[in-house]
């Protein structure tokens, strides 16, 4: 489900089934802007595709956006606690920002996909989507 009025309606009726919050993390930097913009596009693309496949159990939230010099880890901790109080069991942060990727994040490297051909691009994206889905399924099975 997505953070839209229509999906939130659905969420409110099916809360007990939606136990996973997915949050894309998007850094903004003043130098090397293009690389940051690429990360932003990439992480959104992957997050949307994961949501499409796991619509019934995952709520995709608007991204956690931060400036590169900010301490994102402490905000991630705050957000995690907030989502727990909402009743989410699994809170997953998705990032393409290598500098912050520790075990609290699911890290998906963004590749400069601009110039590669469409079929190769699709293959990479699909692999990464699967990698994220596997990570979620693992979380779910560990819990049960």
């Amino acid at each position, binding site marked *: 489900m997505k953070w839209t009025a229509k999906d939130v309606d659905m969420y409110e009726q099916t809360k007990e*089934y939606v136990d996973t919050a997915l949050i894309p993390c998007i850094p903004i930097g003043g130098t090397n802007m293009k690389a940051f913009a690429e990360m932003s596009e990439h992480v959104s693309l992957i997050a949307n595709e994961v949501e499409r496949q*796991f619509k*019934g*159990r995952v709520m995709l939230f608007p991204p956690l956006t931060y400036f590169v010099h900010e301490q994102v880890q402490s905000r991630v901790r705050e957000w995690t606690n907030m989502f727990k109080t909402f009743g989410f069991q699994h809170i997953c942060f998705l990032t393409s920002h290598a500098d912050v990727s520790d075990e609290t994040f699911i890290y998906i490297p963004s590749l400069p996909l601009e110039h590669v051909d469409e079929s190769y691009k699709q293959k990479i994206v699909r692999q990464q989507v699967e990698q994220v889905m596997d990570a979620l399924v693992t979380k779910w099975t560990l819990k049960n």
Partner: protein
Amino acid sequence: MSEKKHRVSRRQFLNYTLTGVGGFMAAGILSPMVRFALDPILKEETGQDMVAVAQVKDITTEPQRFDFKVKVKDAWYESEEPRSAWVFKDENGDIVALSPICTHLGCTVNWNGDKNNPNRFFCPCHYGLYEKDGTNVPNTPPTSPLHRYEYEIKDGTLYLGKAKPRGEA
């Protein structure tokens, strides 16, 4: 005489103007109404486009997943959305194209997705199960079968249309 003429022409003038203005107003009111009335019909048509998905010779009795794209018209813009279908030939040799969207809450199901349930479709979200023909397995969360795509075969190519609840497609 000249006054009479003048009066008539004034009346005519008013007549023309009022009809003109009235006509404009009527057109202004009616045209959006006509548009609204026609819009659903136009939308219906664009939604029913058939999309080429696979070559018939590649379709086996084992369900395979084919991905394709459909054009979707939103209130604001037109975009392409990904879709998938599980396609196979049933025991009569008829083609079956199932929508992978779980009828419980909309996750994507996989053929043979669960080792303990071979030859079934499995939904990883809340462990929903479906038989090969799309029938939901009792005592799992889904309460209705997977939807089926309308299909068409032209020159050895399989085209898919809309996915509909079973019985309608």
